[in-house]
Protein backbone atom coordinates (compact mmCIF):
# COMPACT_ATOMS: atom_id res chain seq x y z
CA UNK A 1 0.00 0.00 0.00
CA UNK A 2 1.45 3.34 -1.02
CA UNK A 3 1.29 5.86 1.75
CA UNK A 4 0.72 9.51 1.07
CA UNK A 5 3.27 11.59 2.95
CA UNK A 6 1.93 13.70 5.80
CA UNK A 7 1.52 17.43 5.32
CA UNK A 8 4.21 19.09 7.44
CA UNK A 9 3.26 20.73 10.70
CA UNK A 10 3.80 24.48 11.21
CA UNK A 11 3.50 26.77 14.19
CA UNK A 12 0.12 28.20 15.21
CA UNK A 13 1.92 31.56 15.42
CA UNK A 14 0.93 34.51 17.60
CA UNK A 15 -2.55 35.08 16.17
CA UNK A 16 -4.32 31.71 16.53
CA UNK A 17 -6.79 33.20 18.98
CA UNK A 18 -8.44 34.99 16.08
CA UNK A 19 -9.98 31.59 15.40
CA UNK A 20 -9.02 29.01 18.06
CA UNK A 21 -9.73 29.01 21.82
CA UNK A 22 -12.76 31.24 21.63
CA UNK A 23 -14.85 32.39 24.58
CA UNK A 24 -16.12 29.47 26.65
CA UNK A 25 -14.13 26.76 24.89
CA UNK A 26 -12.29 26.06 28.16
CA UNK A 27 -15.56 25.23 29.94
CA UNK A 28 -16.31 21.68 28.92
CA UNK A 29 -19.19 20.64 31.15
CA UNK A 30 -22.45 22.57 31.10
CA UNK A 31 -24.50 22.70 34.30
CA UNK A 32 -26.03 19.32 35.01
CA UNK A 33 -23.22 17.28 33.45
CA UNK A 34 -22.70 14.26 35.76
CA UNK A 35 -19.37 14.00 37.51
CA UNK A 36 -17.04 15.59 40.00
CA UNK A 37 -16.43 19.20 39.01
CA UNK A 38 -12.85 20.29 38.72
CA UNK A 39 -10.76 23.19 37.57
CA UNK A 40 -7.22 22.67 36.34
CA UNK A 41 -5.01 25.70 36.00
CA UNK A 42 -1.38 26.63 35.62
CA UNK A 43 1.12 27.99 33.16
CA UNK A 44 3.24 26.85 30.24
CA UNK A 45 6.89 27.64 30.96
CA UNK A 46 9.81 27.88 28.55
CA UNK A 47 13.46 26.91 28.96
CA UNK A 48 14.12 30.03 31.06
CA UNK A 49 10.98 29.30 33.11
CA UNK A 50 9.37 32.40 31.68
CA UNK A 51 5.68 31.90 31.04
CA UNK A 52 4.63 31.38 27.44
CA UNK A 53 2.14 34.14 26.86
CA UNK A 54 0.60 32.71 23.72
CA UNK A 55 0.19 28.97 24.25
CA UNK A 56 -2.74 27.03 22.86
CA UNK A 57 -3.80 24.14 25.10
CA UNK A 58 -6.27 21.49 24.02
CA UNK A 59 -7.65 18.71 26.17
CA UNK A 60 -9.48 15.52 25.23
CA UNK A 61 -11.13 13.45 27.89
CA UNK A 62 -13.63 10.74 28.67
CA UNK A 63 -16.82 11.64 30.51
CA UNK A 64 -17.42 10.78 34.15
CA UNK A 65 -18.50 7.29 33.11
CA UNK A 66 -15.15 6.75 31.39
CA UNK A 67 -16.37 6.88 27.80
CA UNK A 68 -15.07 8.97 24.90
CA UNK A 69 -17.47 10.60 22.49
CA UNK A 70 -15.99 8.89 19.45
CA UNK A 71 -17.21 6.19 17.07
CA UNK A 72 -14.39 3.86 18.10
CA UNK A 73 -15.49 3.90 21.74
CA UNK A 74 -18.27 1.41 21.14
CA UNK A 75 -19.26 0.82 24.78
CA UNK A 76 -22.87 1.85 24.31
CA UNK A 77 -23.79 0.75 27.82
CA UNK A 78 -22.02 3.85 29.13
CA UNK A 79 -24.19 6.91 28.53
CA UNK A 80 -22.91 10.00 26.74
CA UNK A 81 -24.29 13.36 27.80
CA UNK A 82 -25.63 16.01 25.47
CA UNK A 83 -23.43 19.07 25.43
CA UNK A 84 -20.28 17.33 26.62
CA UNK A 85 -17.87 16.55 23.80
CA UNK A 86 -14.84 15.95 26.00
CA UNK A 87 -12.86 18.56 24.06
CA UNK A 88 -11.69 21.91 25.33
CA UNK A 89 -9.37 24.67 24.24
CA UNK A 90 -7.68 27.42 26.19
CA UNK A 91 -5.22 30.16 25.37
CA UNK A 92 -2.81 31.22 28.07
CA UNK A 93 -3.38 34.72 29.41
CA UNK A 94 -1.08 37.18 27.66
CA UNK A 95 -0.01 38.98 30.86
CA UNK A 96 0.07 36.21 33.45
CA UNK A 97 0.54 33.09 31.33
CA UNK A 98 -2.26 31.37 33.24
CA UNK A 99 -4.51 28.89 31.50
CA UNK A 100 -7.51 27.11 33.00
CA UNK A 101 -10.13 24.53 32.17
CA UNK A 102 -13.35 23.76 34.00
CA UNK A 103 -14.67 20.26 33.46
CA UNK A 104 -15.59 17.05 35.27
CA UNK A 105 -13.13 14.41 36.34
CA UNK A 106 -12.95 11.73 33.65
CA UNK A 107 -13.85 8.19 34.63
CA UNK A 108 -11.53 5.23 34.21
CA UNK A 109 -10.79 4.14 30.63
CA UNK A 110 -9.58 0.62 29.83
CA UNK A 111 -6.02 0.00 28.69
CA UNK A 112 -5.19 -2.54 25.95
CA UNK A 113 -4.75 -5.29 28.54
CA UNK A 114 -8.19 -4.77 30.02
CA UNK A 115 -6.97 -3.04 33.17
CA UNK A 116 -8.16 0.42 34.13
CA UNK A 117 -6.19 3.53 33.38
CA UNK A 118 -6.15 6.21 36.04
CA UNK A 119 -8.31 9.27 35.32
CA UNK A 120 -6.45 11.58 32.98
CA UNK A 121 -6.81 14.46 30.55
CA UNK A 122 -5.02 14.13 27.21
CA UNK A 123 -3.30 17.38 26.32
CA UNK A 124 -1.95 18.92 23.12
CA UNK A 125 0.23 22.02 23.45
CA UNK A 126 1.12 24.42 20.67
CA UNK A 127 2.43 27.98 20.55
CA UNK A 128 4.40 30.49 18.58
CA UNK A 129 7.88 28.99 18.47
CA UNK A 130 6.53 25.43 18.45
CA UNK A 131 6.70 23.80 15.05
CA UNK A 132 5.00 20.61 16.25
CA UNK A 133 2.29 19.84 18.78
CA UNK A 134 3.49 18.31 22.06
CA UNK A 135 1.33 15.56 23.54
CA UNK A 136 1.08 14.76 27.23
CA UNK A 137 -1.41 13.80 29.96
CA UNK A 138 -2.62 15.34 33.19
CA UNK A 139 -3.20 12.90 36.08
CA UNK A 140 -4.54 13.84 39.52
CA UNK A 141 -2.73 13.82 42.86
CA UNK A 142 -5.75 12.44 44.74
CA UNK A 143 -5.78 9.28 42.59
CA UNK A 144 -2.52 7.84 43.91
CA UNK A 145 -3.61 4.19 43.91
CA UNK A 146 -5.00 4.38 40.39
CA UNK A 147 -1.91 6.26 39.21
CA UNK A 148 0.33 3.50 40.57
CA UNK A 149 -1.43 0.97 38.34
CA UNK A 150 -1.70 3.10 35.22
CA UNK A 151 -0.09 1.42 32.20
CA UNK A 152 1.02 4.65 30.57
CA UNK A 153 2.45 6.18 33.75
CA UNK A 154 4.37 2.97 34.33
CA UNK A 155 6.04 3.44 30.91
CA UNK A 156 7.47 6.73 32.17
CA UNK A 157 10.75 6.61 34.10
CA UNK A 158 9.79 6.72 37.79
CA UNK A 159 11.77 9.88 38.45
CA UNK A 160 9.77 11.81 35.85
CA UNK A 161 6.23 10.63 36.67
CA UNK A 162 5.56 13.50 39.01
CA UNK A 163 5.74 15.89 36.05
CA UNK A 164 2.41 14.45 34.90
CA UNK A 165 0.45 14.79 38.13
CA UNK A 166 -1.70 17.83 38.84
CA UNK A 167 -1.66 18.85 42.50
CA UNK A 168 -4.94 19.29 44.31
CA UNK A 169 -5.08 22.69 45.97
CA UNK A 170 -5.81 22.05 49.67
CA UNK A 171 -9.22 23.13 50.82
CA UNK A 172 -10.88 23.38 47.41
CA UNK A 173 -14.05 21.36 47.07
CA UNK A 174 -16.57 22.32 44.40
CA UNK A 175 -14.82 22.51 42.12
CA UNK A 176 -11.64 20.80 43.18
CA UNK A 177 -8.82 22.96 41.88
CA UNK A 178 -5.63 21.40 40.57
CA UNK A 179 -2.39 23.13 39.59
CA UNK A 180 -0.41 21.88 36.63
CA UNK A 181 2.48 23.69 34.97
CA UNK A 182 3.83 22.49 31.64
CA UNK A 183 7.59 22.88 31.51
CA UNK A 184 9.79 22.82 28.45
CA UNK A 185 13.47 21.92 28.99
CA UNK A 186 15.35 21.39 32.24
CA UNK A 187 15.57 18.46 34.65
CA UNK A 188 11.91 18.79 35.55
CA UNK A 189 10.67 19.02 31.96
CA UNK A 190 7.14 17.69 31.54
CA UNK A 191 7.12 14.26 29.94
CA UNK A 192 5.88 14.44 26.36
CA UNK A 193 4.65 11.38 24.50
CA UNK A 194 5.22 9.73 21.19
CA UNK A 195 2.51 7.23 20.33
Amino acid at each position, binding site marked *: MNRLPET*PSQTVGPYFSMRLAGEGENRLAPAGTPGERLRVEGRVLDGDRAHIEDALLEIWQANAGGRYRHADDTRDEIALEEGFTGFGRAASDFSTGEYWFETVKPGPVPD*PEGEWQAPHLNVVIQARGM*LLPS*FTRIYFSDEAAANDHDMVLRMVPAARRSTLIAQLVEGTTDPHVYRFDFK*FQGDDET*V*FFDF
Partner: protein
Amino acid sequence: MSEPLIRHYGPKAYDDHPPFRYPDYKSTVKRSPEHGMVRIVQTLSETTGPGPAWSEAASVTADDADLTTNAGTGAAAIGERIIVTGRVLDGGGAGIPGMLVEIWQANASGRYAHWRETAFPAPLDPNFLGVGQCVTDADGVYRFTTVKPGPYPWGNHPNAWRPAHIHFSIMGPTLGSRLVSQMYFPGDPLLPLDPIYNSAPAHSRERMISVYDHDVTIENWALGYRWDIVLRGPTATPFEDGEHR
Protein backbone atom coordinates in the same frame (compact mmCIF):
# COMPACT_ATOMS: atom_id res chain seq x y z
CA MET B 1 -19.27 -5.20 28.74
CA SER B 2 -18.58 -4.63 25.04
CA GLU B 3 -14.99 -4.30 23.94
CA PRO B 4 -14.06 -0.92 22.52
CA LEU B 5 -12.42 -0.92 19.14
CA ILE B 6 -8.69 -0.21 19.24
CA ARG B 7 -7.73 0.92 15.77
CA HIS B 8 -3.97 1.35 15.96
CA TYR B 9 -2.15 4.05 14.07
CA GLY B 10 1.29 3.81 12.60
CA PRO B 11 4.03 5.99 14.04
CA LYS B 12 3.95 9.67 13.29
CA ALA B 13 6.24 10.40 10.34
CA TYR B 14 8.48 12.81 12.25
CA ASP B 15 10.93 12.78 9.32
CA ASP B 16 8.34 14.59 7.20
CA HIS B 17 7.86 17.35 9.79
CA PRO B 18 10.02 20.18 11.10
CA PRO B 19 12.11 19.46 14.19
CA PHE B 20 10.96 20.86 17.53
CA ARG B 21 14.10 22.99 17.69
CA TYR B 22 15.04 24.96 14.59
CA PRO B 23 17.43 27.75 15.63
CA ASP B 24 16.88 29.86 12.48
CA TYR B 25 13.36 30.32 13.87
CA LYS B 26 14.56 31.85 17.11
CA SER B 27 11.49 31.31 19.26
CA THR B 28 11.92 27.54 18.98
CA VAL B 29 15.14 27.59 20.99
CA LYS B 30 13.50 28.05 24.40
CA ARG B 31 10.13 26.54 23.50
CA SER B 32 11.20 23.08 22.37
CA PRO B 33 11.38 19.99 24.57
CA GLU B 34 14.93 18.81 25.21
CA HIS B 35 14.36 15.34 26.65
CA GLY B 36 13.36 12.67 24.17
CA MET B 37 9.68 11.89 23.98
CA VAL B 38 8.54 8.86 25.95
CA ARG B 39 7.01 6.25 23.67
CA ILE B 40 3.73 4.94 25.03
CA VAL B 41 1.23 2.30 24.04
CA GLN B 42 -1.81 3.43 22.05
CA THR B 43 -4.86 3.16 24.28
CA LEU B 44 -8.41 4.27 23.71
CA SER B 45 -7.27 7.75 24.74
CA GLU B 46 -4.94 7.94 21.74
CA THR B 47 -6.99 6.04 19.17
CA THR B 48 -10.02 8.25 19.74
CA GLY B 49 -9.87 12.01 19.47
CA PRO B 50 -11.94 15.16 19.49
CA GLY B 51 -12.15 15.77 15.73
CA PRO B 52 -15.47 14.12 14.93
CA ALA B 53 -17.35 15.36 18.02
CA TRP B 54 -15.88 18.85 17.75
CA SER B 55 -16.81 19.04 14.06
CA GLU B 56 -20.35 17.89 14.78
CA ALA B 57 -20.79 20.36 17.62
CA ALA B 58 -19.54 23.32 15.56
CA SER B 59 -22.42 25.30 14.18
CA VAL B 60 -21.04 25.93 10.71
CA THR B 61 -22.96 27.77 8.03
CA ALA B 62 -22.06 28.27 4.39
CA ASP B 63 -21.40 31.94 5.16
CA ASP B 64 -18.50 30.95 7.44
CA ALA B 65 -16.49 29.74 4.44
CA ASP B 66 -16.60 33.09 2.62
CA LEU B 67 -14.07 35.38 4.27
CA THR B 68 -14.78 38.16 1.78
CA THR B 69 -18.23 38.64 3.31
CA ASN B 70 -18.30 36.92 6.72
CA ALA B 71 -17.51 40.13 8.58
CA GLY B 72 -21.22 40.72 8.08
CA THR B 73 -20.88 44.40 7.26
CA GLY B 74 -22.68 44.08 3.96
CA ALA B 75 -19.57 45.17 2.07
CA ALA B 76 -16.88 42.99 0.54
CA ALA B 77 -13.29 42.71 1.73
CA ILE B 78 -10.63 44.46 -0.33
CA GLY B 79 -8.02 42.39 -2.12
CA GLU B 80 -7.45 39.76 -4.72
CA ARG B 81 -10.44 37.41 -4.34
CA ILE B 82 -9.42 33.74 -4.43
CA ILE B 83 -10.93 30.29 -4.02
CA VAL B 84 -8.95 27.87 -1.86
CA THR B 85 -10.08 24.28 -2.02
CA GLY B 86 -8.73 20.76 -1.65
CA ARG B 87 -9.23 17.49 0.14
CA VAL B 88 -8.41 16.36 3.64
CA LEU B 89 -6.96 12.88 3.21
CA ASP B 90 -5.72 10.08 5.40
CA GLY B 91 -2.39 8.40 4.69
CA GLY B 92 -4.12 5.85 2.48
CA GLY B 93 -5.51 8.57 0.23
CA ALA B 94 -9.11 8.35 1.43
CA GLY B 95 -11.00 11.60 1.90
CA ILE B 96 -11.98 12.37 5.48
CA PRO B 97 -15.60 13.56 5.56
CA GLY B 98 -17.30 15.66 8.20
CA MET B 99 -14.08 17.25 9.49
CA LEU B 100 -14.00 20.85 10.65
CA VAL B 101 -11.35 22.97 8.91
CA GLU B 102 -10.52 26.24 10.69
CA ILE B 103 -8.43 28.96 9.04
CA TRP B 104 -7.03 32.37 9.92
CA GLN B 105 -4.96 34.81 7.92
CA ALA B 106 -3.76 38.36 7.36
CA ASN B 107 -5.72 40.70 5.11
CA ALA B 108 -4.61 41.74 1.64
CA SER B 109 -2.25 44.30 3.16
CA GLY B 110 -0.58 41.73 5.39
CA ARG B 111 -2.29 42.94 8.55
CA TYR B 112 -3.89 40.56 11.04
CA ALA B 113 -7.08 41.70 12.73
CA HIS B 114 -5.60 40.79 16.13
CA TRP B 115 -5.07 43.12 19.05
CA ARG B 116 -1.39 42.11 19.33
CA GLU B 117 -0.57 43.33 15.84
CA THR B 118 0.44 46.93 16.44
CA ALA B 119 3.91 47.17 14.92
CA PHE B 120 3.12 46.90 11.22
CA PRO B 121 1.53 50.10 9.89
CA ALA B 122 -0.63 48.43 7.25
CA PRO B 123 -4.33 49.21 7.09
CA LEU B 124 -7.02 47.08 8.67
CA ASP B 125 -9.98 46.26 6.49
CA PRO B 126 -13.26 46.75 8.37
CA ASN B 127 -14.86 44.22 6.04
CA PHE B 128 -12.36 41.43 6.71
CA LEU B 129 -12.05 39.36 9.88
CA GLY B 130 -9.54 36.88 8.46
CA VAL B 131 -11.16 33.79 10.00
CA GLY B 132 -13.24 31.04 8.46
CA GLN B 133 -14.50 27.52 8.99
CA CYS B 134 -16.09 24.80 6.92
CA VAL B 135 -16.75 21.09 7.25
CA THR B 136 -15.42 18.65 4.65
CA ASP B 137 -18.01 16.99 2.41
CA ALA B 138 -18.45 13.27 1.75
CA ASP B 139 -15.24 13.20 -0.34
CA GLY B 140 -13.20 15.14 2.20
CA VAL B 141 -13.39 18.38 0.17
CA TYR B 142 -13.16 21.78 1.86
CA ARG B 143 -13.63 25.10 0.06
CA PHE B 144 -13.11 28.72 1.08
CA THR B 145 -13.53 32.04 -0.65
CA THR B 146 -11.14 34.66 0.68
CA VAL B 147 -8.65 37.32 -0.36
CA LYS B 148 -5.01 36.54 -0.94
CA PRO B 149 -3.15 37.48 2.25
CA GLY B 150 -0.26 39.92 2.00
CA PRO B 151 3.25 39.24 3.29
CA TYR B 152 4.13 40.91 6.57
CA PRO B 153 7.25 41.73 8.56
CA TRP B 154 8.21 39.99 11.79
CA GLY B 155 11.02 40.31 14.27
CA ASN B 156 12.90 37.06 13.82
CA HIS B 157 15.88 38.65 12.03
CA PRO B 158 16.66 41.92 10.21
CA ASN B 159 14.22 42.72 7.41
CA ALA B 160 12.33 39.47 7.99
CA TRP B 161 9.08 38.98 6.05
CA ARG B 162 6.70 36.07 6.19
CA PRO B 163 5.60 34.81 2.79
CA ALA B 164 1.86 35.01 2.17
CA HIS B 165 0.15 32.14 3.98
CA ILE B 166 -3.13 30.90 5.41
CA HIS B 167 -3.14 29.05 8.75
CA PHE B 168 -5.07 25.77 8.74
CA SER B 169 -6.19 23.81 11.81
CA ILE B 170 -7.67 20.31 11.59
CA MET B 171 -8.25 17.98 14.51
CA GLY B 172 -8.43 14.82 12.39
CA PRO B 173 -10.03 11.48 13.29
CA THR B 174 -7.82 10.74 16.30
CA LEU B 175 -5.75 12.57 18.89
CA GLY B 176 -2.53 11.83 17.00
CA SER B 177 -3.81 13.20 13.71
CA ARG B 178 -3.99 16.76 15.04
CA LEU B 179 -2.47 19.08 12.43
CA VAL B 180 -1.83 22.80 12.28
CA SER B 181 -0.06 23.88 9.13
CA GLN B 182 0.27 26.86 6.81
CA MET B 183 -0.68 26.98 3.15
CA TYR B 184 1.67 28.97 0.93
CA PHE B 185 1.33 30.29 -2.62
CA PRO B 186 3.30 29.17 -5.68
CA GLY B 187 6.14 31.36 -6.85
CA ASP B 188 6.39 33.43 -3.68
CA PRO B 189 9.90 34.98 -3.69
CA LEU B 190 9.91 35.04 0.12
CA LEU B 191 9.70 31.26 0.52
CA PRO B 192 13.46 30.60 0.24
CA LEU B 193 14.08 33.25 2.91
CA ASP B 194 11.49 32.09 5.46
CA PRO B 195 12.76 29.99 8.38
CA ILE B 196 9.29 28.73 9.28
CA TYR B 197 8.65 27.37 5.80
CA ASN B 198 12.20 26.04 5.60
CA SER B 199 11.96 24.34 8.99
CA ALA B 200 10.20 21.50 7.18
CA PRO B 201 12.63 19.07 5.55
CA ALA B 202 13.59 19.78 1.94
CA HIS B 203 11.77 16.70 0.68
CA SER B 204 8.46 17.66 2.27
CA ARG B 205 8.21 21.45 2.46
CA GLU B 206 6.79 21.92 -1.04
CA ARG B 207 3.72 19.98 0.11
CA MET B 208 2.70 23.17 1.88
CA ILE B 209 2.57 25.17 -1.38
CA SER B 210 -0.82 25.31 -3.06
CA VAL B 211 -1.08 24.94 -6.83
CA TYR B 212 -2.82 27.36 -9.12
CA ASP B 213 -5.75 25.46 -10.69
CA HIS B 214 -7.48 27.05 -13.64
CA ASP B 215 -10.37 24.62 -13.26
CA VAL B 216 -11.05 26.12 -9.84
CA THR B 217 -10.78 29.68 -11.14
CA ILE B 218 -14.18 31.26 -11.73
CA GLU B 219 -14.52 33.49 -14.77
CA ASN B 220 -14.97 37.15 -13.93
CA TRP B 221 -14.79 36.35 -10.22
CA ALA B 222 -11.79 34.69 -8.53
CA LEU B 223 -8.54 32.78 -9.09
CA GLY B 224 -8.45 29.22 -7.80
CA TYR B 225 -5.84 27.48 -5.68
CA ARG B 226 -5.82 23.83 -4.71
CA TRP B 227 -4.19 22.38 -1.61
CA ASP B 228 -4.64 18.82 -0.36
CA ILE B 229 -3.88 18.06 3.27
CA VAL B 230 -2.68 14.63 4.37
CA LEU B 231 -3.17 13.67 8.00
CA ARG B 232 -1.44 10.91 9.89
CA GLY B 233 -2.84 7.38 9.81
CA PRO B 234 -4.46 4.98 9.91
CA THR B 235 -1.81 2.32 9.76
CA ALA B 236 -1.41 0.28 6.60
CA THR B 237 -1.12 -3.05 8.30
CA PRO B 238 -3.19 -4.39 11.17
CA PHE B 239 -1.42 -4.97 14.44
CA GLU B 240 -1.42 -8.14 16.45
CA ASP B 241 -3.09 -8.05 19.84
CA GLY B 242 -0.94 -6.45 22.44
CA GLU B 243 1.55 -5.12 19.94
CA HIS B 244 2.06 -1.48 19.34
CA ARG B 245 4.05 0.74 17.04
